[in-house]
């Protein structure tokens, strides 16, 4: 079934002489040589960087886990002192959650999604590369703090007041807050990239109902990131403001509330678990179909289940706070919601079972790992239902029972599918197979090691052992259980070691394959392996969910260039933009090739965070300005007026090179970015309301807020500026030059007037953010809005400059549309901010 390497070489050789189109295609997609490869932005390169980095952090986090287990092997062990132990478990959790699990799944998405959807690349390749460099530098910064003895030590959940200045004096916590904020940028960037990619660059005919489950899973996950990460970012920023400048958000002695952190953290933290699990579940659906040798049963059910999990996961966060003394009614609601999430997950499990039962399963290493996943994950899900029950949670919360549960769902739900994915998709990258024999060893060592280590922990917890203790007395009845757990952990590690040996071995002596070794049905297996940067000689037209199964002739047709974009006439990288629902071709998108810009921008962004960690705030501001200039320069290169209007996309289909307005991929990208921003703003507004509910009797008011005039003036200025901006956009579309200038300058003047009028008013008011949670949250909400007005003004200036140099014309008005979108968004958030601050509580 698989073609041998010499056979492929013969076939490729017989293909010569290359057609001129192919020569141009190869040239456009050529990877830079030598060190220049670091400037490559193509998804096949960046995706691999992310996966390799994520795996390296998996190993580092695993080493920390082994140190933890070694300390706990016998009672009252003195091997590791308490200070180091507290850093170890904090960094183990932090590394595994932030530096391994989320990024590596996004890495797989970056690497696989374009190919799986029949695209040549993602729509914003430079942004993916920027995200990767932020992740790498931020990850090294956070993890490296262990080696200077300044690693975070307040737990990966960083609850204040333990993480507040009085109880955490060093820079440990600052490294966590700022370093991880930096890393989170990469996840947010990747999420926006994945949504736009999945919605816009699917192959013609790959309509939304034919989209592979992994793409669905990544799409849902990316939306979850958009709504889950900003609350954490907001919480990070607020805690850092409290630590660095004394602003009150979480300090109960000054009318803040430490539970506010827990709400924001778990509003992120619980969806986070599903952000890790859903892509893995998507992988499982792909692998199960391939190895059951039939289409996934209940495809639509599984899609609905994924979406349902995405929604429900935002309604569960309080189940991490059952013991904090929350009212009984809320407890019941969150208990019910926590159980409800088991239903869509059950649908997926039974869809996999039904597919296996209805197919002819082929127990190769990837499926073996899926079986391991089934056992471990179902067990973890069942204990999850148990702890959703409030009284039971009161007993086992923060005990080793929870340690067992969370590792069952995370290692079962994510690591086993990940290893299945490695064994399944490795040939795409290397063109060689991992060993089946070693694969079985890896599986059994990991599976047995895992269960030997974590199954006893359920009992350890029920016998009363709390989490996060560096040792325990000998007479508690926990000794044997801990000994077994530690031995199991070594066995698990041995499995990972054999895997690494297999990977190294397979690069030299793995069985070479050329084409679709598993006889899979989806587009990721359409092209010959290993992947070439352009992936497909021509972008396929597809007719079903499993094109490789459904269209027997497809590989040959694609290789012969009989489908789309078999040429790169301008020697530029191109991919197709298709309709979000029907996947009808709409545009030929020219995408950037290798550039150093992402790396440089990431390095300078990291300098900003380093300066802030070192409390050099003036320097940080200067660096922030430099970053802003770089991003403006970056944007300046985009969305140029194309040399020709339309090009031949292949087979005589003429498509435009430029799509303006709401059809443009950049408009969608900005829209998603604003969703992120709105969620962050919403978190700040939530803070304002939440602190009021915590201290309704001690809620002061500032005298100037009693007067309504500033609010009315502010609202009028915002609305007037938005109206003027809308007028400018319309005038430009109608090619009325003077109307455009009149509108945009009026908007600009109103915006400036808003700032000049309101900022001094707030500055002079009797508001002291270090005094009371009210003052701090008013400043947070208003400060955030003022910052947005400044950005809106900057964008208006940018649009004016683009008009002057001719990059923005009546027909090519993406920049202006984006500016207007941002402007109206700023007006909207401003209205909410002003109404909340001036009118609430009534």
């Amino acid at each position: 079934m698989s073609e041998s390497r010499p056979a492929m070489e013969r076939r490729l050789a017989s293909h010569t002489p290359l057609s001129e189109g192919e020569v141009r295609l190869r040239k456009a997609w050529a990877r830079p040589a030598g060190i220049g490869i670091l400037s490559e932005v193509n998804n096949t390169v960046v995706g691999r960087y992310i996966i390799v980095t994520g795996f390296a952090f998996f190993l580092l986090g695993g080493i920390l886990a082994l140190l933890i287990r070694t300390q706990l092997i016998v009672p009252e062990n003195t091997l590791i002192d308490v200070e180091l132990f507290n850093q170890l478990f904090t960094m183990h959790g932090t590394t595994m959650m932030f530096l391994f699990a989320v990024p590596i799944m996004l890495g797989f998405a970056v690497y696989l999604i374009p190919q799986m959807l029949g695209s040549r690349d993602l729509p914003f390749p430079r942004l993916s590369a920027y995200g990767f460099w932020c992740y790498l530098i931020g990850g090294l910064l956070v993890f490296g703090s262990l080696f200077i003895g300044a690693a975070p030590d307040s737990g990966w959940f960083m609850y204040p007041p333990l993480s507040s200045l009085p109880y955490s004096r060093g820079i440990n916590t600052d490294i966590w807050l700022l370093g991880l904020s930096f890393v989170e940028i990469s996840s947010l960037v990747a999420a926006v990239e994945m949504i736009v990619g999945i919605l816009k660059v699917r192959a013609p005919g790959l309509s939304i109902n034919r989209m592979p489950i992994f793409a669905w899973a990544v799409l849902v996950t990316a939306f979850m990131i958009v709504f889950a990460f900003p609350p954490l970012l907001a919480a990070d920023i607020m805690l850092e403001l409290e630590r660095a400048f004394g602003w009150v958000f979480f300090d109960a002695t000054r009318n803040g509330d430490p539970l506010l952190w827990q709400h924001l953290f778990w509003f992120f933290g619980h969806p986070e678990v599903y952000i890790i699990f859903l892509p893995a579940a998507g992988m499982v659906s792909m692998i199960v179909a391939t190895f059951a040798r039939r289409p996934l049963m209940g495809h639509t059910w599984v899609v609905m289940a994924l979406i349902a999990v995405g929604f429900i996961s935002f309604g569960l966060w309080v189940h991490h706070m059952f013991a904090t003394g929350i009212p009984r009614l809320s407890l019941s609601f969150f208990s019910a919601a926590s159980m409800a999430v088991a239903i869509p997950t059950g649908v997926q499990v039974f869809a996999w079972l039904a597919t296996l039962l209805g197919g002819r399963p082929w127990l190769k290493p990837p499926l073996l790992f899926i079986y391991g996943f089934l056992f471990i994950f179902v067990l973890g899900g069942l204990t999850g239902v148990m702890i959703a029950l409030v009284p039971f949670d009161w007993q086992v919360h923060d005990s080793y029972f929870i340690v067992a549960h969370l590792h069952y769902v995370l290692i079962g739900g994510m690591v086993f599918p990940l290893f299945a994915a490695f064994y399944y998709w490795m040939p795409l990258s290397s063109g060689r197979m991992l060993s089946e024999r070693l694969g079985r060893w890896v599986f059994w060592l990991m599976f047995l090691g895992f269960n030997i280590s974590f199954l006893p922990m359920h009992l350890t917890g029920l016998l009363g052992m709390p989490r996060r203790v560096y040792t325990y007395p000998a007479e508690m009845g926990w000794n044997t259980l801990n000994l077994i757990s530690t031995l199991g952990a070594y066995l698990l590690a041995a499995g990972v070691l054999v895997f690494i040996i297999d990977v190294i071995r397979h690069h030299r002596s793995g069985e070479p394959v050329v084409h679709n070794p598993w006889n899979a049905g989806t587009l990721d297996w359409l092209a010959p392996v290993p992947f070439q940067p352009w992936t497909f000689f021509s972008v396929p037209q597809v007719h079903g969910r499993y094109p490789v199964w459904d269209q027997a002739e497809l590989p040959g047709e694609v290789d012969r260039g009989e489908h789309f974009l078999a040429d790169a006439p301008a020697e530029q990288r191109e991919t197709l933009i298709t309709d979000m629902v029907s996947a009808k071709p709409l545009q030929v998108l020219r995408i950037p090739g290798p550039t150093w810009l992402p790396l440089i921008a990431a390095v300078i962004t990291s300098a900003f965070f380093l300066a802030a960690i070192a409390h050099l705030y003036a320097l940080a501001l200067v660096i922030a300005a430099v970053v802003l200039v770089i991003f403006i320069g970056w944007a300046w290169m985009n969305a140029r007026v194309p040399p020709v209007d339309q090009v031949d996309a292949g087979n005589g289909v003429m498509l435009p090179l430029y799509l303006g307005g709401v059809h443009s991929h950049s408009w969608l990208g900005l829209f998603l970015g604003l969703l992120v921003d709105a969620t962050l703003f919403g978190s700040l507004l939530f803070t304002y309301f939440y602190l009021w509910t915590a201290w309704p009797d001690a809620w002061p008011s500032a005298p100037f807020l009693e007067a309504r005039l500033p609010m009315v003036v502010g609202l009028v200025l915002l609305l007037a500026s938005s109206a003027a901006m809308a007028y400018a956009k319309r005038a430009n579309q109608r090619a009325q030059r003077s109307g455009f200038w009149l509108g945009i300058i009026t908007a600009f003047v109103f915006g400036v007037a808003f700032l000049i009028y309101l900022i001094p008013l707030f500055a002079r008011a009797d508001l002291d953010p270090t005094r009371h949670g009210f003052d701090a949250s008013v400043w947070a909400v208003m400060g955030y809005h003022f910052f947005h007005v400044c950005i809106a003004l900057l964008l208006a200036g940018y649009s004016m400059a683009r008009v002057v140099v001719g990059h923005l014309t009546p027909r090519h008005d993406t920049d202006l549309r984006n500016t207007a979108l941002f402007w109206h968004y700023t007006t909207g958030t401003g209205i909410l901010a002003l109404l909340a601050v001036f009118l609430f509580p009534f």
Partner: protein
Amino acid sequence: MHNGWQARTSNRALGRAAALVIAMLSTGCGSLEGIQSALQPQGISAQSIATVWWIMFWGACAILLLVMVLAIYALRRPKPSRLGHPYLIIGGGLVFPIVTLTALLTYGLSIGHEFHGGAAAPAPLRIEVIGKRWWWEVRYRNGPSATPIVSANEIHLPVGVPVEFAVSTSDVIHSLWIPSLAGKIDMVPGKVNRVRIQADTPGVYRGQCAEYCGTQHTWMAFYVVAHTPDEFEAWLANEQRHARVPSEAFLQRGRNAFVDAGCGACHRIRGVEQAFGALGPDLTHVGSRRSLGAGTIDNHVGTLAGWIADSHAIKPGNLMPPFAAFDGETLRALAAYLESLQ
């Protein structure tokens, strides 16, 4: 596949080994007993939670078994099974969980709550526990207006009646957990959380801080002594008394050392004028307690001396400074004096 048969047998053998190991692990790991075990309940709340646990445990075993039997059956049959049908998805993934989860939730919501959040009638005895880094202040109050009796690191309570616990913290978040008696309740800055706990069997149990609270979270434990009502009244009456004034010269020397070294700046001993501090545990009856350093070591004259001289060797990072300057005899006298505070 040339090694298909071999692979299958090794799979089968390893699969059996796995099943065996897991069965051993889940049954033979040791006893369910212990002074901190939730599975050896000594109070009504822990009892109902243990009951629900065993119900859920057997239910979960059955469901896991069902799933794995289906999954393994899929590998062992010659042709596609009729079970591989969308009905399986609807039945197993939708109907079955909705029915079982509804039943479980209804049952779960009906238990345990009477002890969290407080019931209508006031409990006769109220115990206030204040979490500190890394020890517990315990105050006993008979009725809302009575002056509290302050103690530390040990909780005494009568069996057979619900006791109201009012828990708070003076620094970071802690969590009070006595697995043998009840679930845990957090101590959150700016809040007082209430919970009712009832012990049913006289005995000594252990509790521990369950919310990570910094360096010495590990050794922030305590003993709970459940007395018969009469014993409890006697204990409380003794606890209420001021510290005994020593008559023996050796003990007086210890008392003087306590005063001269300024121990009283942090520790209170009722009846000793110079011992008024509130930073460390109240020592009025320290000699009667079972442990030192909040459950870190047993309490006797030797460990008392060791603790005073260098508590950091015993509980690294705790907030009491080491007092290495005492000569041996003075240290022994001081330890003996503290031990005499019964």
